[in-house]
Every structure is written in C-alpha cells, then in structure tokens.
C-alpha cells in the first residue's frame, strides 16, 4: 500500500471518530454498529442487536464482497495453510482478521478492499507446531482507541503489537514490537512445537494469552499449559499461571501421583478465554493433560486439566476452579469460550458463567463464587480397563441441569439403520468394540466413545441472547474409536508406554506414512457412521429454566453419505446433520446464523428452531459468523470459508436498494 493511500485511511478514521460508534447492545437505526472482539464481547455473547437482516428478509441475502487470503503450501518450509477459522472484528469501519499463516489483514468494512497486511512469517517456524490439518488461527484482539489503537496478534511462540491504522509494528512493545512467549518456562519448549490459535484477552493495560502444544507431542517434560499477561505498552510479562502445578506445595500438586506434575505437559489453554471486565475476572478453559488417552504415567485427578479456571485478571491468582473430567482419557478438552451472562433462576439474579463441553454437558456457575447454579453430582463410573498401568478415576461430575445436549454413550440399539445392509454391517462392527456409557475407559481393542473426541460443543462455542437468556449451540454427534496400544519405538515425539497410534486410534492417521505409524483400520461402512443420524444438531437452552428449549437437526450433511453405494437406494432425511467445530451467532433480527462443514450459511428462527433459509458459499464454511452495520448503514454478515489455497472471507448483505 502506498503512503498516500495510508494517509487517506488515517484521515477517514479520524473523521469516523466524530461519529460515536454504538455498542452492540443499544443500537439505533442506521448508526454504525461494531463487533469489537472475536466473541462480539469479551463475555463471549456472539450476539449483535442489529436487526436490519431479520426473519422477513434473510432469504434475500447475497454475496456483497469476498476477500481471499491466497495462501499456498510452501515447500521450502514444509508448511501448509489449514482451515480458515478466523472471526473478524469490525472497529470504526475497518475489519481486522488473521489468516491461516497468521497474517493480520485490515479491510474496508463496506467494500472489502485491503487496507494493510502484516506478515509475521510464521511459516518459518516449520510445520511441527501446527495440527495435522496445517496452520490455523482464530483472530486478533484490539486495545485502545482513536489514534492509539493497537492490534495484538499471538502467533506461534510470539506476541506482536501492531498499529491499527498502518499495520506497522509498535517498536516500543517488547523487542521491536514482539515478545517471546516461552521465555523462562519451567520446561523447555521449542519454538516449532509451541503454538497459539485463539486470540488474546484484553484487560486494562494487559494482553492475556493461553498456550498450546500439539497433542501429538507426548514427552516427559513437555511444557505445561499456561496463561500469561503482558503489559500492552512495554511488552513486559506481568504474570503467568501454569495449568499444571509447578511445586509440591502448590494447590493441586497432590492430584498428580508420584510427583507426575514435574514432567507432565499440556492441559493447554487453546480455546478462547472470557473476561468479566467490571470484576477483573478471567475465565480459562483447559484441555487434557498429555498423553490424551493413557494416564498410566499421571495417575490421579490431574488438576487443572479439563477444568474451568477463574483467575484474577490483574494478578493471575486463582479465584476458583471446577474440573469437569478427572484423570482425562477421552480428549474431552474444554474448548468452548465460557459464556458470561446474568440469569434469573427461581427468582434469584445470578451473574453466571456457562461452559458447554465436548462431552455434551452445560456446566453453569455463579461466576464470582464458583458455586454451581444447579447441583453437579459426583457419580461412580466404570473403571474396568485392560490397559496396563491405567487407573481410571472412580467418579466423574454430572450436572443435574440443564440436561445433556448431546447423545452420550453407545449401545447396540444405536446401530445405524439407514438400510438393512448398513444396519447389519454397523452391528457387526459395533460388536468388535468395547461400548458403554459416557466415561467408559479406553481399551486395547478400541472403546467407542460418544460424543466424539471432536464432538459435542467445540471451539466455536455457544451464543447467548441477553434479551431472552437463551443459549444457542451446535453439537456434533457420532462416535470415535478410543484405542490404545504399546508405543512403537520408531514413533517420533512419543515416549509414553501406550498411545493411540493403533489401527483404530486417532494418531494412526496423523502419523500415516512415517516410520512407526500404525496402519489405519478401514471400516466396511467407509464414511458412513456406525450410529444413526443426525450427525449434528442446533440446540437452544433456556438458561433461566435450565432446560432445553428446542433441538433440531443441523445441516444437510456429507455428500459422502448421500452418494455412497450402500445408501444409493436409501430414503435419507434432508438434514443428515453436518458435524463441525465452528459455531454460531444470534442477532436482534431473531436469527441464529450458523455455518460449518458444508458449503452454506444457514439462518434459523431463534425462537422456534425453524430453518428459515440458507445461502450457498463456494467453499465450506469454516469460521464463526459475525455481523456489523457499516458506516454506510448496511448490515453485513461475514464468515470465513474454505481451507488452504481455496479459502475466502465472504461478506453477505441484503441487495442494495
């Protein structure tokens, strides 16, 4: 971009400041309405009051503009761009987003014209830190206002501060605009293994980030999950909280038998965190400790893995915590951004936090005290296992309200019955697995777990309408095989005795083609799931009542099923259900917008769950939708679509008059 153009946008921005932008919750017709954070607000409502697009006209949506990242696999670094998962922000008529290779882009909110781009050259760190699907990133955060507004980008092992107007590095921040996130970590972590995928939280003059090491890496002395706060001006680290205790006296160390806190890593913080800005309370969802499916080297409950942590945002001190899975063996990470809201339950007003989960539960707490809003009972679970060294935890927490939103556990009655032949094959294959209720331990022959490891609610999270106190979410239904077997000595990155690198374990596909990789089991059903459809649902939960308000199949589902030879003559439902991790938003137009997994953006009636319309996209929708009203007074709905070289940010709007 030429400097003349740059000056021009600076002028535009200054002029823009004159009009006070309205907040999402209190918009007036025609005024610009922003979307300031990836989750709309740091309380993660994913709600916008804008109602220009509503039940009456949503079927007229059309593509207004489209912007393509144009990122390619880079042979010299052996990297490739993965799924395009960013949720953009819109501030002062500029859209900010991150790409798969974690470039930051500023676009004109009305036209999609590129204003500036910043490239941290993250691909130079190589492919190891990225997941098997390639590089991905979910967005950026903004701090300040007016002519001192900064964009913060957490990319791989670094945090960057950029001038929001120009995209230039803020040289006073850290080392010429960048700080290294892994400085002083208790266990060494290489920059090619350390990763950041979810955007930072901004609180006063602090920028707060989580952390991630790929599940694939399963070493003694892997780095523990962390939350860190840096000074927005200097880049100085102000505090750090490790999700695995780091001394024998630290709270929770006694939940790691044989001092296994010393060498156990992960319990990552890879999902989005939330912030109660008035109280300065930070809500942190954490993942499974390493290794995901075998805990023989980390006996005990393993705090603070698979937990919701409430931290003091100023100091990083723990206020309260809740562990949803003790001694996790199912990869049931907490990945969804905690939703903050005010509820009225039995006449009581409660400032609450609700966390939806992969395992299909919604955990609701008083967000100040950590007291469950409805009782959460510790119930005995199956602990029988044939896996050497494993000691499954005897109890797990079960919320009494709201009811589970996902199907949990597997029995032979669940066998897919789309045709008699499919039913026969599904029954035959189901019988080769260990099956049982939620929290049935992994096994050497393979335990079928439902929800899937990527099932239930995932990083896309839930949306909350503060005018109705309804929580909306998409749940991915179906099963995955949880099989563990002795680790092949040739396998890279793994030194635990048992891992899921087996024909029916998740890692076999990840390692495929490398020395030590297990051969992948091929089901005779091919891509047809072992259990009945639908494979995804859209669910509305009335959080005042703690009840499910409605639940409908979501998405037409995979063409792999519709066109499969075994289903050619089957009478399939219109909505088989589209699985996926990305989420949704709810608007003042009475609509829930949701994409993910198939090439459509869907609109549902927020009150009834009726699918109102859908609009086609060239690529499959892959991010969370967001919306704003631009300075010109037009409401846009943006969603990231596609993966790799075939990706686009698509802006929808009503036809211009």
């Amino acid at each position, binding site marked *: 971009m030429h400097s003349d153009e740059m000056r021009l946008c600076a002028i535009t921005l200054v002029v823009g400041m004159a009009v006070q932008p309205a907040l999402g919750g209190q918009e007036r017709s025609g005024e610009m309405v922003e979307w300031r954070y990836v989750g709309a607000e740091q309380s993660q409502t994913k709600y916008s009051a804008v109602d220009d697009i509503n039940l009456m006209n949503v079927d007229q949506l059309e593509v207004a503009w489209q912007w*393509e*990242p*144009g*990122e*390619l696999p880079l042979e010299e670094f052996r990297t490739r761009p993965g799924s395009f998962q960013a949720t953009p922000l819109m501030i002062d008529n500029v859209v900010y987003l991150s790409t798969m290779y974690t470039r930051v882009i500023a676009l004109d909110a009305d036209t999609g014209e590129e204003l500036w781009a910043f490239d941290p050259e993250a691909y130079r760190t190589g492919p190891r830190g990225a997941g098997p699907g390639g590089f991905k990133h979910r967005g950026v955060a903004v701090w300040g206002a007016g002519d001192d507004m900064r964009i913060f980008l957490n990319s791989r092992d670094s945090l960057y501060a950029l001038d929001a107007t120009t995209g230039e590095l803020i040289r006073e921040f850290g080392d010429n605009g960048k700080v290294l996130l892994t400085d002083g970590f208790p266990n060494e972590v290489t920059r090619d293994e350390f990763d950041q995928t979810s955007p930072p939280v901004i609180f006063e003059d602090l920028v707060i980030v989580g952390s991630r090491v790929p599940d694939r890496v399963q070493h003694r002395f892997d780095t523990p999950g962390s939350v860190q706060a840096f000074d927005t001006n200097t880049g100085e680290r102000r505090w750090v909280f490790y999700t695995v205790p780091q001394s024998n006296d630290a709270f929770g160390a006694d939940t790691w038998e044989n001092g296994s806190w010393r060498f156990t890593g992960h319990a990552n913080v890879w999902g989005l965190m939330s912030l109660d800005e008035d109280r300065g309370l930070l809500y942190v969802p954490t993942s499974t400790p390493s290794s995901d499916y075998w805990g023989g080297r980390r006996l005990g409950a393993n705090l603070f893995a698979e937990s919701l942590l409430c931290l003091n945002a100023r100091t990083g001190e723990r206020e309260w915590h809740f562990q949803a899975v003790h001694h996790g063996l199912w990869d049931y990470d907490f990945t969804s951004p905690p939703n903050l809201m005010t509820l009225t339950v039995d006449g009581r007003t409660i400032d609450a936090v609700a966390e939806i989960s992969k395992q299909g539960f919604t955990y609701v707490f008083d967000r100040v005290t950590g007291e469950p809003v409805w009782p959460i009972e510790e119930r005995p679970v199956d602990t029988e296992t044939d896996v050497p060294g494993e000691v499954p935890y005897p109890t797990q927490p079960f919320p009494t309200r709201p009811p589970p939103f996902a199907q949990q556990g597997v029995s032979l009655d669940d066998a897919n019955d789309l045709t*008699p*032949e499919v039913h*026969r094959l599904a*029954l*035959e294959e189901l*019988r*080769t697995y260990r099956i049982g209720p939620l929290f049935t331990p992994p096994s050497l022959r393979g335990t079928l777990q439902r929800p899937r490891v990527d099932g239930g609610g995932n990083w896309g999270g839930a949306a909350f309408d503060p005018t109705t106190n309804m929580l909306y979410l998409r749940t991915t239904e179906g099963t995955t095989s949880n099989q563990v077997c002795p680790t*092949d000595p040739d396998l890279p990155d793994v030194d635990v005795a048992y891992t899921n690198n087996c*024909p029916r374990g998740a890692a076999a*596909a990840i390692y*495929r*083609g490398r020395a030590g990789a*297990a*051969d*992948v*089991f*091929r*089901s*005779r059903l*091919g*891509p047809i799931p072992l259990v009945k459809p639908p494979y995804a649902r859209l669910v509305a939960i009335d959080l005042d009542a703690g009840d499910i308000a409605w639940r409908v199949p979501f998405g037409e589902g*995979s*063409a*792999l099923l*519709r*066109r*499969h*030879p075994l289903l050619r003559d089957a009478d399939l439902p219109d909505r088989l259900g589209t699985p996926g991790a990305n989420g949704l938003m709810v608007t003042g137009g009475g609509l829930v917008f949701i994409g993910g997994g198939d090439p459509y953006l869907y609109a549902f009636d927020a009150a009834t769950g009726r699918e109102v319309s859908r609009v086609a996209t060239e*690529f*499959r929708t892959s991010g969370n939708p967001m919306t704003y009203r631009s300075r010109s007074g037009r409401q846009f709905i943006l969603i990231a679509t*596609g*993966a*790799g*070289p*075939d990706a686009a940010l698509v802006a929808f709007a009503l036809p211009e008059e």
Partner: protein
Amino acid sequence: MKRTRSLGVACILLVLVMVPAAAAQDHPGAQPYKQVCQLCHGSEGRGDLGPSLVPLGFDVDYVLAVVREGYSQMPPISTRELSDDAVRQVVAYLESLSSQTSGVVASSYDGPRTAEGQPDLNGIWQVLTTAAWDIRAHNAQDGVPAGLGVVEGNDIPYQGWAVTQQQENYANRMTADPVGQCYLPGVPRITYMPFPFRILQTPDHVIMTYEFAHVVRIIYTDGSPHPLPNDFWMGDSRGRWEGDTFVVDTTHFNGRTWFDAAGNFHSDALHVVERYTPTSAAHIDYEVLIEDPTVFTRPWTMRMPLYRRVEEGLQLLDYDCVDFILQSLTGQEGGAR
C-alpha cells in the same frame, strides 16, 4: 502468494481435447491424475500413502463427493484445482486401468448354457498351482513344489503387526496350520487344495462339493442376503451372475482358517469375492478379491485358472482327513466309525 493453479487446470483441459484416448498414459484423465492424485494414490492408481484406486468400485458421483469433501486423511480438493470434468476424466482413466488389469476376464468365449441362460459350469474342476502350499512366490522345499505365486503383485498388504504374525505362523506351520489338524480350509483355500471339486448348478443355488474332507458349499443365487452375523469355517456364500461371470460373496468366517500352508492368514472380518468366468470349454478364470481391514491395509487379489478334468468316468473320491488323524492317534485302521 497469488494463485496460479487455475491456469494449470486450463492447460490440462486443453491437453484433454487434443490427445486421443489410446494407451493408458495417453488417456485424458492420466494428466490430472498425475498432477493431483498420484502423490498419495501412487502411479496408475496402485496405491501408496492412500489406498489403491484400481479397481475403483465407485461411481463418478461418489468420487466427486470424496474429492470435494475429502475423506479420512484425504484433503478436500476444490474445483479450482480439479474441475468436475477433470474428475470425470480421472474416473474414466482409472476405469480403463481396471479393465486392463482384469483384461483376461473380458472373455469372448460363448459356450454351452443352462436352461436359465447362464454359462454351464457343471462338471469337475481342479487347479494346477502350488497355492495350497504358499500363495506367494516360493522356492521348492522337501515335499513342496516351487511356485510363482497367485497373488497379484506378489504383495499381501499386511498391517505391521500382521507381518510379524504371519512370520510366526510360518515358523510354526508344521503344527499350527489348521488344515494339518483337519479343520476345514475355508474360502478360497478349498478351491486350490490339490484335489478336484464338482460344480452343480440349479436355478436358485450352486453347489460345490470338494474331494477334500467332503466339504460342501451351498451358494444361494436367489438374491437372499447374508444372514445376521454367525461364524462358519467356510463362511456364508451368496452368488449372483454378472454377465457370464459367476460372482460369489462370502462373509461370516470364524477367523481360524489360513490361506495356505505358509501361514498367510486373516481375521473373522474376512470378506471374499470370487469371480468365476469361463474362458473356454475347459478353463475358468478364477479371481478372488480379499478384504480384511483388521489384517490388511487394502483389498488384494489372487488369480489362477481352473481346469476341467476330462478323464472318462471321473468322480470325486474320498479323502477323509479326520479318519487319518484318528488312525495316527489310535494306531488303528480307519473306516470303522
């Protein structure tokens, strides 16, 4: 970071128009295959990181769905990288490769037929291979004639653990071979035991009786499906006619049989598809597709000719294996049970 690939596709399409579809490498689908698919699926669809695509076994619609959505480790491929038309060409290319590899089957032989119009296979047949000892190529050993093998490519795609298991079986073959203990040989091993067998066709089933151990297979051709899961030494066989080829689908094995005396093995997930195609009055092309996802990384194929026994007055005689075992155990003459 700008896109240049749509240009590449345009070039491919130009090539499609200009090159006549003669040899496989000149097939219009060969070029897009090489450019996009070959890296994982190997040259000429033979499989590498990804599964073999020959024979393909899926229609264009399904292949389009797989290409666009991806499946398992296969990433989705957009229309910009591979147009729908290019996918159709690739499918046609793979189908041309399939018909080449199973070229023997496309027989022009038109012999005697039954009242129902099917080729008349009634009679006594026998193989002349050494597959019963070892289905792969092997050297001669004491009592074992050398053989070139009957497995296509001579490669049985065992999973890692199964390679070890087969080697263990081989080392212990003298005592561990189930046939050595007179258990039924299973399918397809029964076909290539060095004994004759008779095919008897009726309108709604085909009976195969074997000299070895009085084995009988009743193969229903009435369109009935396999019964609900149950384990059989010989599996459950259902047959159908595809043109002049008799196709037998067999499942529900108990997983305790071997393919040969060399320890080549499978699990109870074995699925066998046999194809009997008459190529002359005295020859049947016998092709067997083996699927067993528990043991193998992909399906694989065996092939050998069956020869009609033409000796006058020939009949199946008696090889009562159990009796021999009893004799060796008791030291008494058999036949007195």
